[in-house]
């Protein structure tokens, strides 16, 4: 289940007509489509911030080196409406991140998918622990 919004498309009218979700900024300008990656690590910190949240993930590289990656995700606000809080995802949660690396070559990436050890996605349809599964009225 993915957003189909084409970040390369700049015609604003399309956004309004088609009613597709507008990306806050052009992710393909920030991250390199030619540098897909998969990272396995544990959560150090989740910055629940806008316009996009950031996950700090400690990764053990193949050569044994320990590095910390910053992974960009989505705005936390809707998750919060669904009942997610800062306690929902414990520090140390094991995550596999499929994404694309930053163009400036630093240890940053966009998290295309955040996958838990059992293969499920971190937040999906309110499936996160503590998630209420939709708006509270």
């Amino acid at each position, binding site marked *: 289940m993915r957003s189909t919004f084409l970040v390369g498309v700049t015609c604003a009218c399309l956004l309004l007509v088609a009613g597709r979700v507008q990306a806050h900024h052009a992710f393909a300008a920030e991250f390199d489509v030619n540098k897909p990656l998969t990272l396995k690590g544990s959560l150090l910190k989740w910055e629940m911030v806008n316009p996009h949240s950031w996950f700090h993930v400690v990764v053990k590289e193949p050569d044994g080196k320990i590095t910390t990656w910053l992974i960009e995700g989505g705005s936390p606000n809707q998750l919060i409406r669904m009942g997610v*809080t800062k306690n929902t995802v414990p520090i140390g949660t094991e995550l596999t991140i499929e994404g694309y690396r930053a163009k400036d070559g630093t240890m940053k990436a966009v998290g295309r998918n955040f996958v838990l050890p059992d293969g499920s996605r971190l937040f999906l349809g309110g499936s996160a622990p503590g998630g209420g599964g939709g708006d509270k009225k």
Partner: protein
Amino acid sequence: MRNRCLTTGNVVAAASAGLLLLATLAAAQAPAYRAPRAPDGKPNLNGIWQAMNTAHWDIEAHSSAPSPARELGAAGAVPAGLGVVEGGSIPYTPEALAKRNENRANRLKLDPEVKCYLPGVPRATYMPYPFQIIQSQKHVMMVHEYAGALRTIYMTEQTEAPADSWMGWSNGRWEGETLVVDTKGFNDLSWFDRAGNFHSDALHVVERFTARSPDTLNYEVTIEDPKVFTRPWKMSMPLYRRVEPNAQIMELRCVEFVEDLLYGHLRKQPK
């Protein structure tokens, strides 16, 4: 003779007036003034308010000082202030005091206000800009001119902060004449003033807003943050109503004013 009596009388009068003033300030808990009521019967704090002091420069007592930015000259000068912290100084731990001093020395680089970041609490209240209280039953809103900063004070349906934020998560209640606002869930990024006074994410702020006359409020704040201070401490000040009939919270959308400062080094170099 008569003259002497008069003089003595004056001294006594002046002294008692002074005492009365102190007593009034101290006894904000039990003000003599009863505010007009909002239609729901609560004290009516609706209005556009502004502090008139130098707490935004430094909440502690301080001398005047030159502008931190040379080009501003006297337009950016720091006016002296007698401070709004009860007891005079903030009870920092030694390590925190060192950090405050470092903040102060590097304030042009570090002060979140310079970067147009949200001001945090209570700093938002005494910045040199107005804010408006929009008082409803479920929510009391505080809308600040600076950076469009905003607080929702939950009067009902109160919960804990879901996540840390700049302006914190505020729950409110009425205690007689006083609106009491309890705020937690802060991040550790905002400051108290331009002088580098700061807090951690353990900050807990309790504010008391009490009408003291038709056009003034008493504003009292208790600050608690065991990671930074050795004990809770208080500040207090009056807030003044903006009484001009066309008073309005205007846009101070400052992001674009600071972009060159923040991102100018990433500008494409001219060929």
